């Protein structure tokens, strides 16, 4: 259950150059930079660096480093080299975290190759990069000066993935890794159920060895106390509509469709994990995409729907057949349905308030779906109404943009009306 070191390729390439000589190199690496970096390492490691000067400041223990962090403007990055007086990486990071907030500072920890659980632990404790002692100091310096690609919440996302296709597992793990999410792949049920000690934030269930979806596995997972409340995403064939309908009935939270779109994968995983954390009172990270530029004049706050009232669904789509397919199903659920084919009219209806879920098409006359999403995002207080984008433009960047603008779901057209209702039902339960 060990994964390659994050800098495995680097380690294989770099000549071993540990010790005081390395520190000399460190000083050289920093003398050309106008940025300050704090280095916390043993006096032996520091000996060479002390004589070289430059924009590096050296500390022989975490207490002094923390004191400097509190008393001075924050440096661009921190380098921690545990050993010989400096506690192990996890203890050092814990001590630093207790003493002072690290903020946006990049934290590079120089440590021998660790197993994946230890890596996750260090990332959770605030490390941004883990490098081996053999890494050239120029590289360590570059990492300390690079923007901190924390954000802590993102890097600590752990996903378990079950599918019999090993290459598919590898591909998804590579996609997740690129977005700072740690993925563990499992081939069969026993290995998933007897998984490692650390808790996953989400589970993706794919096909078993026979190439079919194992619904029983989902049931058994839900029976395990530790995994009962975990978001479960099913990995399904894009053309298997029956399986998609069954997914919700069997308790899945969402599904991913093959062929896989990376942005959709990451967005859906991120959404589910953030929603679970919010429900458990764990703060969510800041949105990945900055607030959009001003689109129109500020809008007033809107009325928020009361939970006891009859649920009100607004369908904003220029195609009248969408409402025709959905409104009767929604009425059967006891929901009140309003349909509009115009963007401005949709916005007016949202302003009036009392809408629980907005089913929003992106191509609307007068005001596009994205315009409406932008406007809603800028409201204060933030909208409690659930936003579901329903669009035929299901390109990766469209899905990504919709999720980054706080859409709660993205449903591509053509859609399964039962599925739309199931998704809305789940959103309303949150």
């Amino acid at each position, binding site marked *: 259950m060990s994964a390659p070191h994050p800098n495995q390729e680097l380690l294989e390439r770099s000549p071993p150059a540990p010790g005081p000589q390395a520190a000399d190199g460190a000083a050289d690496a920093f003398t050309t930079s106008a940025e300050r970096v704090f280095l916390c390492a043993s006096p032996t490691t520091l000996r060479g660096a002390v004589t070289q000067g430059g924009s590096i400041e050296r500390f022989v223990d975490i207490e002094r480093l923390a004191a400097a962090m509190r008393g001075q403007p924050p440096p661009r990055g921190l380098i921690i080299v545990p050993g010989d007086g400096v506690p192990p990486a996890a203890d050092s990071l814990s001590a630093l975290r207790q003493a002072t907030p690290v903020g946006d500072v990049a934290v590079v920890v120089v440590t021998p190759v660790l197993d994946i659980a230890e890596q996750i632990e260090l990332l959770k404790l605030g490390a941004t990069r883990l490098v081996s002692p053999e890494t050239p100091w120029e590289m360590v310096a570059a990492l300390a000066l690079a923007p901190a690609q924390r954000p802590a919440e993102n890097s600590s996302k752990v996903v378990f993935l079950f599918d019999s296709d*090993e290459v598919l597992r*590898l*591909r998804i793990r590579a996609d997740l890794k690129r977005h700072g999410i740690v993925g563990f792949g499992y081939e069969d049920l026993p290995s998933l159920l007897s998984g490692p000690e650390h808790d996953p934030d989400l589970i993706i269930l794919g096909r078993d060895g026979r190439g079919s979806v194992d619904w029983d596995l989902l049931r058994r997972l839900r029976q395990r106390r530790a995994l009962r409340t975990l978001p479960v995403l099913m990995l399904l064939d894009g053309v298997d*509509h029956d399986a998609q309908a069954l997914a919700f009935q069997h308790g899945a939270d969402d599904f991913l469709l093959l062929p896989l779109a990376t942005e959709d994968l990451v967005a859906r995983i991120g959404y589910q994990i953030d929603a679970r954390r919010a429900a458990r009172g764990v703060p969510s990270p800041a949105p990945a995409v900055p607030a959009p530029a001003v689109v129109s004049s500020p809008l007033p706050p809107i009325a928020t729907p009361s939970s006891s009232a009859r649920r009100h669904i607004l369908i904003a789509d220029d195609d*009248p057949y969408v409402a025709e397919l959905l409104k009767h199903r929604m009425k059967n659920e006891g929901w009140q349905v309003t349909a509009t084919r115009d963007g401005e009219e949709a916005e007016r209806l949202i302003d009036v308030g009392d809408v629980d879920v907005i089913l929003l098409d992106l191509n609307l006359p007068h005001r596009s779906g994205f315009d409406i999403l932008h406007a809603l995002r800028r409201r204060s207080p933030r909208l409690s109404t659930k936003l579901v984008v329903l669009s035929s433009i299901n390109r990766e960047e469209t899905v990504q943009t919709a999720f980054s603008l706080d859409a709660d779901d993205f449903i591509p057209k053509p859609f399964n009306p039962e599925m739309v209702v199931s998704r809305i039902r789940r959103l309303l339960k949150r």
Partner: protein
Amino acid sequence: MNGVWVALSETVSAPLYRPLVVVIGLELIAIQMQIFWLLWKTVVTRARLRETRRFRTEMGDPLGEALASADPVALAACTRRARTYAPEAVQAHLESLMELSVGNTNALLVEMYGELGYTRAAMKATRSWRVSNRIRALRRLSLVARSGEAELLSKMGSVHEHIVRLLVAQIMAKAGTPEQLFSVLRDLERPRRIMDQPFAAILATASRTHIEFLIARLEELADPSVRRLVLEVSARVTPAACARVLPEAARHPHKELRIGACQAAAMLGFPSLVPLMTTALGDPESEVRGQAAKALGRLQCEESIESLAAALGDPAFWVRQNAAASLAALGAPGHLRLEEIARTGTDRFAADSARQELRRQSLLTSGIGVAA
């Protein structure tokens, strides 16, 4: 008056003017016929729209309720009532609903469409001597065809026009067996690059089983561009099958396959593919080199830094641009290398590409000190 008529008759009967008068007369008749035809079409279209609106107003709610409840009795009643309306109106309404829906609702609509006899009529129209009729019928069938229709249509694949065969392939991807899809695609050509999109759309609707079958018989597909598209889709749908054929595709004599291998490698994202892509950077075709450079950025391995740095001096602008973007995508070490080339590079092309990329990055991200 009589004199005028006589003069006119004399003029018309003159040998020089007679043909001219005949031509003018025929043109007047043609213009009149066109006006009549346009008026007739307008009347027919308006009548059809009126009928469609009437059907929607009167039948929209009952049909919506019947579909929502999936009640067979209510659906049978709707089918009976639908027969009393103009077939075009009913057909248009059902097709609009089918285009938007999948799953059980779609299945009920397809059943109703079939019971009203429209599927049978469309199948009959696929044998029409007019291509436009066949195309219209196949578009309809792409919404409603099931295995039975696919079986009959698979025989059309090899005998008709390209667009017809493309539509048949679309139906096979959705309703046919993997063998039927393969038999249609085997001899199908992608005439121009602009046709990539319809092919990709067709393959995107195929299941894993279909794509696995196509990958297994990749060499038998006649057009290398179609093979490339299959390879690309397989990287997303069946990565294992794709990974098996990737090394061979990367060495294929046809450049389309080599381009496909690079695109698939980028999609798969495995670091183990770095050597394959590094080799592709030395391909004689600039399109292959460009795609390989792009793929190396996606593979995120620092060991490709030097190969990408060398590609910055490529004679093709697109390769240099992709190599620079891929170096930037490799994070801090890639940035360092770009800065170094921008500062000290002796190759003017390489230094310019590095500078452009660094400038682009500095615009994208704030707070990174880059040499412009």
